[in-house]
């Protein structure tokens, strides 16, 4: 497993290639790339500021990764998440999974990004012409994570 939290961009082709190189049992590589869109709430987005909790982020991503490996037979898992200032078109996150068969790779990749979105301590602040505001967690993301039986994390 491999988890990276970084300010810099990443090379998707090189990263995906590394998932299967030297692993002749890999028959399927499924990946998700999340990108900054140009519009939010019908306003042009100028920039996104991604804050995170160093230490806990890596720990939580490693836990999500371990959970995926417990559920599916995977050869390799890679999660790269950026932080800092990003602008429309920039890559935010890469989740990639290599497995012998495609169904495990698809399911695990979707599981990883669903859990990451509800558990990994990242917060987005959006800068538009109307100013900056913190992005609220989405009910749709909670619902997506709930499909996989995610544990609750409210503090009450």
């Amino acid at each position, binding site marked *: 497993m491999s988890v990276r939290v970084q300010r810099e961009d990443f090379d998707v082709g090189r990263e995906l290639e590394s998932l299967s190189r030297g692993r002749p049992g890999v028959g399927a590589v499924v990946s998700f790339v*999340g990108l900054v869109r140009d519009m939010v709430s019908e306003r042009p987005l100028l920039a996104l500021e*991604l*804050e*995170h*909790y160093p*230490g*806990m982020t890596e*720990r*939580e991503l490693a836990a999500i990764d371990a959970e995926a490996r417990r559920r599916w037979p995977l050869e390799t898992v890679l999660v790269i*998440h950026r932080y800092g200032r990003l602008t429309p078109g920039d890559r*935010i*996150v890469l989740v990639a999974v290599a497995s012998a068969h495609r169904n495990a790779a698809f399911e695990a990749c979707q599981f990883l*990004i669903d859990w*990451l*979105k*509800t*558990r*990994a*301590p*990242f*917060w*987005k*602040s959006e800068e538009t012409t109307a100013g900056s505001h*913190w*992005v*609220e*967690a*989405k009910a749709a*993301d909670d619902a997506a994570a709930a499909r996989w039986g995610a544990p609750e*994390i*409210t*503090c*009450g």
Partner: protein
Amino acid sequence: MKLLYFAWLRTKLGLAEEEVTLPETVHDVADLMTWMRDRGPLYAAALANPAVIRVAVNQIYARPHHPVTASDEIALFPPVSGG
């Protein structure tokens, strides 16, 4: 005890972290939240709605009855929005 704040909790409180002396009345996360709200109107306002506050003890999500000690790193933050 080290307290960390992130995202709008950090901007509302106007600080990213602080060292506090653990009061004797605080034994778990729920106690901590109660004590925090009594620290002043800024804290009371920022922590008014528990549904939008997550707590991590030593970088692991913690439920209300999770114990807290003087040597812990405790982080308070809103629901996450990465990915």
